[in-house]
């Protein structure tokens, strides 16, 4: 387990390096002079030269890259062209908003997805199984941005149950501590704000959760069906254990590996989907941060935003792989 974990952690390093190269060359791949593209055609020659110098584009590429890498290693993500602020300092509130949204969505996806999959497998070919699997099939094919708009239309506009957009009540803003608003409001003991933040979280997190939920339900069902056919499950039943116990203890534990894999993979989809969900629900997360940067051609923000999200994705997958090793003893011997 220890040797495997160390090897797996070291495997992340070349991938992170490769990612930094791709993101670094992204700005250099802009047709023409990137500084001119950023400032627009009407920019003066001096302004273009100044920005070229500021971005380090007048130096050989390897010098630029090692400077960039050195900056990354010391936690320097560069400077936003639009605001002039350090991206490292500016990014956290956005990142926190995305994390809160993504974690809420993943929680919904796992709780509903895994249970729907289990019940479908338990009562295979029942009406619940059919309905759940048809819904899962539709869920996989659902464009997240359409679902988000439908939710707004039904639950916010027509039924007036939940807020349409935003992360907090505009007239009652949260005083940030960690920028994870649910935690912040709890720390401040402000129940009213906690409820408001929770209400704002419902629609975007459900929209974001739909696809992972559908995929998790399908995978859980198929891996549960496979496990439930095993001899040891039959033995457990024959010994008189209740079906509930057999399903939730014996089967689920062995069906966890494929489910865990898919959860790890879905996290990437979720982080990617966040950019769309955040646009629809005016959620001030990192997706929106990148999206707005595209409008302003603020390439350092686009680069760093993408790199930060991709790094989180890699770290989540690393965590999932390490969890496998903890859950499945066979992996230790590989």
């Amino acid at each position, binding site marked *: 387990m220890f040797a495997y974990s160390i090897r797996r952690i070291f495997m992340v390093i070349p991938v992170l390096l*490769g990612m930094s190269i791709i993101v670094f060359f992204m*700005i250099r791949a802009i047709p023409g002079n990137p500084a001119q593209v950023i400032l627009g055609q009407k920019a003066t020659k001096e302004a273009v030269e100044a920005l070229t110098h500021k971005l380090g584009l007048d130096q050989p590429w390897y010098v630029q890259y090692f400077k960039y890498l050195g900056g990354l290693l010391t936690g320097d993500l560069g400077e936003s062209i639009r605001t002039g602020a350090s991206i490292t300092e500016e990014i956290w509130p956005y990142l926190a908003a995305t994390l809160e949204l993504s974690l809420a969505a993943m929680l919904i996806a796992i709780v509903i997805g895994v249970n729907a999959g289990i019940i479908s497998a338990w009562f295979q070919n029942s009406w619940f199984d059919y309905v759940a699997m048809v819904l899962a099939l539709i869920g996989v094919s659902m*464009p997240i*941005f*359409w679902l988000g*708009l*439908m939710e707004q239309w039904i639950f916010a506009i027509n039924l007036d149950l939940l807020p349409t957009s935003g992360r907090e009540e505009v007239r009652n803003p949260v005083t940030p501590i960690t920028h994870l608003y649910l935690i912040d409001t709890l720390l401040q003991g402000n129940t009213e704000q906690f409820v408001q933040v929770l209400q704002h979280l419902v629609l975007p997190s459900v929209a974001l959760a739909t696809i992972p939920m559908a995929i998790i339900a399908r995978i859980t069902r198929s891996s549960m069906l496979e496990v439930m056919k095993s001899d040891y499950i039959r033995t457990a039943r024959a010994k008189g254990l209740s079906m509930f116990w057999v399903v939730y203890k014996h089967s689920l534990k062995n069906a966890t590996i494929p489910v865990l894999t898919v959860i790890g993979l879905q996290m990437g989809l979720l982080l990617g989907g966040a950019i769309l969900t955040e646009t629809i629900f005016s959620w001030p997360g990192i997706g929106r941060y990148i999206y707005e940067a595209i409008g302003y051609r603020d390439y350092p923000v686009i680069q760093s935003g993408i790199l930060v999200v991709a790094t989180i994705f890699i770290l989540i997958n690393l965590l999932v792989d390490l969890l496998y090793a903890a859950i499945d003893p066979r992996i230790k011997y590989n």
Partner: protein
Amino acid sequence: MAELARNGTPVQNEKVKEESVSLWKEGWRSFKKNKMALVGTGIVLFFILLAVFAPVIAPYEINDQNLSMRLKAPSSEHVFGTDDFGRDIFSRVIYGARISLWVGFFSVLGSVIVGSLLGIIAGYYGRWIDGMISRIFDIMLAFPSILLAIGIVAVLGPSLKNALIAIAIINIPNFGRLIRSRVLSIKQEEYIMAAKAIGMSDARILFHHILPNSMAPIIVQGTLAIATAIIEAAALGFLGLGAQPPNPEWGKMLADSKDYLTQAPWTMVFPGLAIMLTVLGFNLMGDGLRDALDPRMKN
């Protein structure tokens, strides 16, 4: 081969041909029995027909503006209602099928061609070439795909063509890995060794033996990838990074509908429904093809 062993007769070319044909026939027989796959194929065919006959079916010109008919609810005159420029949504949704299917098909074709070439080179030649190509695939797959697509379009500039290129690029590693693993297993087969022994060139082995034997998983993966590509294209369009106005692209239509949710929800309902149905069709068809052609890929 089992039959050959029983009969003890040498394999004739015709016999091989017959067997390979029967493999596809077998696949088709099994596909026909799968009701969900047939429903999916029906949906896909429906949208292909819509796209092909769009000029005949669409009752209005897609860019005909009629401000007196702004945001009108569905009626016998405009079955899906009208948008904020008074344009007929039904006609625009029909023409939108052309854009979505075009982007879906050609982006996947691009990924298949480039991914297959890279996968074949990596799998067949191995060693450092394989190491290098596989690492590039690993790194590309380390990005959430839509984010990488957004990055690529941000660099190339927003347009439908660039969205197609971005979607093709992000899907290359999926096909590359698939083909690489097929090549690795096929190149150990006896008939490939025999081909090498009689002095057949690498190119001939790759393109006459290995590639045709990898077609089934490519078709399955390709069909499912079209579904993803259509959603990705619509997502880029939704973010304003894909098709530009006045193109009737479904994602862009959804983005335009955002401001009229209260007044005119139909501007949002129909383009979204079209995306969902098309994607559902390709997903069902892809699942059916997988079960019929390549049961090993089944979860």
